[in-house]
């Protein structure tokens, strides 16, 4: 159903058309070049359109075609390993079609329509299916099975379903009402995909990073924000999360980033190896790159494109982690479009609906029972870049109101070579309690207490440090000196983690528990020794303390811990003169 109208007015990326009766958020083709745009307002007979491409030399009177479809992405096998721009055009295809610079009026479909996939049906003729059900599967990459879903709004009785090799356009079957089934379907990006029910996020996303799993855990289906000051090791952290977290699919959105830095990501990601399978990490990754000089409207759309792809894999029953870098650039795109529309500005010129849009986006995260009956999740980790490092600005503030976890990357820690440079005093996680049950069942009933003790210790240390700054640590009472030392052990032996060390790069949750327990047990023994009259200097010079620092690099942690703790027992006994 294509309706043709014409352009009335052009002002930068905002075009006004007359003669069409498009719905809000419908995609329209603007001008002789067929530039892609989206309806963002209707004022009596005029339709306001934001155009995703440069509008230079577009004239009033040129045609505007209403496609009758909202901005949608193609969902089907072939998404993985792709590198897209903000509106799901594959960047490598764009290079092929128009060279090194992005020209306008070029369309490229998100999926490869020529590639053939081997499809194995899982349903039979006569079976009743409804939206979101699994029809069958395609081996998308070596380790990811792509489950072909009935489009969410379709249901009926299977009349025919075929095994074989198909392109995404081929018909693989038919419902009794004549509806054709294909390997792919379209979904509008601004509309959350339906699920049977949202589940409570009671399972932690295991990242193998002690500061995250141990102190500031994130739920599968949870939301987290990270500020990304320069030199804080954000890139390494993102790669660690992508590599090690137990999400099966990774979606990375580079939104308004620097071209040169994006080039770095696009070069490096394909080189990363998935440590669990030894295959390239790209085989379970989708990258979306929209640099700051690419059209602003496409930047605004990029986060929706990303989260829709993430939801699609969730609907197959996968755990997906989505990283958006950075949501501040996305908010700026909204601000810019809003000011073009001459809307009344809110705080710092951002539109008044900024908070609502941010909330809507983060609400699409979550763990859910998908329509097919399997459980899946979308975990969202959004980077914020507050201008001038000022956390009171609207984007950061509105984000913090929504997300449950805040990982405060801190450049000062990075300068002190404390990695991962997450500040343990300003970070927080609201999931701690929610996981108690899970911890009790899967790790240890003690874990919650240990974690609390460690946090408490670090807090006390921060207070003592203030005094030390004034009077020096020697002036503190002996028990406080000991507290400082044990806190240092927690920081250096537990929180610090070497992303490049074979063993230390990933620390299973059970090992995290054992390590923290060992450190705190050592601390308890030390306190006991101190109370029995042993001078603090003697305790601090024990060898077992220094050996404890090295256990994180041991492949056989249990054996190493066993040796250290036995040694500690002997040493403490020695100190007490037994």
């Amino acid at each position, binding site marked *: 159903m294509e309706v043709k109208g014409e352009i009335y007015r052009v002002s930068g990326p905002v075009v006004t058309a007359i003669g069409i009766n498009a719905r809000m958020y419908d995609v329209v083709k603007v001008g002789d070049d067929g530039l892609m745009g989206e309806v963002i307002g209707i004022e009596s007979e005029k339709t306001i359109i934001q155009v995703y491409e440069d509008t230079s030399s577009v004239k009033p009177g040129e045609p505007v075609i209403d496609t009758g479809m909202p901005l949608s992405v193609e969902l089907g096998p072939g998404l993985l390993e792709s590198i897209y721009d903000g509106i799901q055009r594959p960047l490598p295809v764009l290079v092929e079609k128009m060279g090194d610079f992005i020209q306008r009026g070029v369309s490229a479909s998100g999926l490869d329509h020529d590639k053939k996939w081997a499809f194995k049906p899982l349903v039979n003729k006569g079976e009743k299916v409804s939206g979101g059900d699994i029809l069958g599967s395609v081996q998308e990459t070596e380790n990811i099975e792509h489950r072909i879903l009935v489009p969410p709004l379709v249901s009926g009785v299977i009349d025919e379903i075929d095994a074989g090799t198909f392109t995404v356009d081929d018909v693989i079957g038919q419902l009794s009402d004549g509806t054709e089934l294909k390997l792919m379907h379209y979904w509008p990006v601004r509309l959350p995909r339906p699920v049977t029910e949202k589940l409570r996020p009671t399972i932690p996303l295991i990242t193998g990073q002690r500061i995250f799993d141990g102190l500031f855990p994130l739920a599968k289906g949870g939301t987290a924000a990270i500020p990304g000051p320069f030199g804080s090791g954000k890139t390494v952290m993102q790669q660690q999360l992508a590599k090690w977290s137990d999400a099966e699919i990774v979606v990375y959105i580079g939104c308004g980033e620097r*071209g040169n*830095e994006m080039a770095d990501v696009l070069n490096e990601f394909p080189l990363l190896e998935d440590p669990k399978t030894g295959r390239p990490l790209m085989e379970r990754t989708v990258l979306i790159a929209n640099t700051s000089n690419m059209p602003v409207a496409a930047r605004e759309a990029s986060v929706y494109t990303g989260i829709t792809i993430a939801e699609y894999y969730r609907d197959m029953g996968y755990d997906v982690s989505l990283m958006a870098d950075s949501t501040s650039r996305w908010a700026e795109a909204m601000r*810019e479009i809003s000011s073009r529309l001459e809307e009344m500005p809110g705080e710092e010129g951002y539109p008044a609906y900024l908070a609502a849009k941010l909330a809507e986006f983060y609400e699409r995260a979550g763990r859910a029972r998908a329509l097919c009956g399997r459980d899946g999740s979308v975990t969202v980790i959004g980077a914020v870049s507050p201008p001038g490092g000022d956390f009171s600005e609207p984007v950061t503030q509105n984000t913090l109101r929504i997300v449950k976890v805040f990982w405060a990357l801190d450049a000062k820690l990075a300068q002190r070579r404390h990695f991962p440079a997450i500040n343990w005093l300003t970070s927080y996680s609201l999931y701690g309690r929610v996981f108690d049950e899970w911890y009790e069942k899967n790790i240890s009933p003690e874990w919650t207490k240990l974690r609390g003790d460690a946090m408490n210790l670090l807090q006390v240390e921060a207070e003592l440090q203030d005094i030390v700054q004034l009077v020096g640590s020697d002036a503190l009472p002996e028990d406080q000196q000991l507290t400082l030392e044990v806190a240092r052990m927690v920081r250096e032996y537990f929180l610090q983690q070497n992303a490049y060390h074979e063993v230390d790069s990933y620390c299973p949750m059970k090992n995290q528990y054992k390590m923290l327990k060992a450190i705190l047990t050592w601390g308890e023994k030390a306190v006991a020794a101190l109370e029995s009259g042993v001078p603090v200097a003697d305790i601090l010079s024990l060898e077992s303390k220094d050996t404890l620092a090295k256990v994180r690099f041991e492949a056989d942690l249990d054996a190493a811990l066993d040796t250290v703790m036995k040694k500690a027992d002997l040493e403490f006994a020695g100190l007490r003169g037994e």
Partner: protein
Amino acid sequence: MTKEYKTIRDVSGPLIFVEKTEPVGYAELVNVTLDDGSVKRGQVLDTSKDMVVVQIFEGTGGLNRGSGVRFTGETIKLPVSQDMLGRILSGSGEPLDGGPRIVPEDRWDITGAAINPYSRNPPAEFIQTGISTIDGMNTLVRGQKLPIFSGSGLPHNEIALQIARQAKVLGAEEEFSVVFAAMGITNEEAQHFMHDFERTGALERAVVFMNLADDPAVERLITPRLALTAAEYLAYEHDMHVLVILTDITNYCEALRQMGAAREEVPGRRGYPGYMYTDLASNYERAGVIKGRKGSVTQFSILSMPGDDITHPIPDLSGYITEGQIVISRELHMKGIYPPVNVLPSLSRLMNSGIGPGRTREDHKAVSDQLYAAYAEGKDLRGLVAIVGKEALSERDRKFLEFADLFEDRFVRQGMEEDRSIEETLDLGWELLSSLPEAQLTRIDNKFIEKYHPAHRGKARGEAPPRESTGDAEAEATAE
């Protein structure tokens, strides 16, 4: 021949409003003929069936409702040719040096399309500027955009000129071509640049675009785009390595604000338009290296911070687009130190990919980190000394305090004509670091200390006194 309209309805500041036209394309170039026959140029800002808004580059002086308006039917294009090298052009691309018009080999659209991020090569080739504070601690690489954050009355122009004179890629014979765009600088400053270009012969490999302080502000909005188009042409068509110097970004942004106000747009922070970030990005992002092409565009812009305020929207937004910044310090300038680069807030985000073995020297990162840390500590101590006096300091602290002075006096300070090689810079760094107790050099791996520390140099390896290892595998690995 295109139609001439005599239907100007309003003139407001640099804008004219033309009615009853046939359809006119957005961003089209416009010629306006005045009563006296002179022609002004402009660009379509807003076009609709009822009204076309045109911004006039040379200002609207002398325009009246009877002036004739012609729409050229094309967007602004720059006639490009290799013969541009050695030429001085106006802010809108007309010859200013009395020479003939450029005979174009091609005509390029000045807006410039965005480089597909997939086509980019991450910049990694070290550029030696001969300035220690830049080469040693805030290394510039080919394809980077690194602005100088300065203030009024500071010698940023000298620094820019010195870089333009001295910049080279190690091991490569070819010199940089320079595209210089002046935006709203004074005639005197412009003379200064021109004199220096002529004196050093740099003009032969330079293209100069001049928009002076008394030229119309609107023209300033296209000057950097012309310059970058010329740079892209030389880089991607003629395989040249081009260094683009834009001065002064602040004047550019003022012009942007002025135009926004004239168009009665809703202002953003401090009255600057809400799209300033995207507008700046569309200029800054035109730096880079493209896979499979030999040339490159490196940007070095000068930005004077109003009131030395680094949180002002102009430096703030720039900082989010550029790959770092070189910050000029008024305090150092007052002490008589040239170039007064304050290394502490300065930063080059692409430094780590441009340094190290095979590019500069294996110890580069370690030396840079150590210099940075030691200088930062020394500067902190200065604050303390002001309160408690020098006598209260420990022996160790006193060494760091002295180091800070030494660093400013020897490492930061250098002559305007002094071109230090990276070897010289690093060796100088070592020399200064050797004034500190060796045990305090915690950022440097033992093997580098044995190899490069003046106290060990020349000795056989085994003779060096045993030290505890300070090498932290993590420290090196986390290089971002």
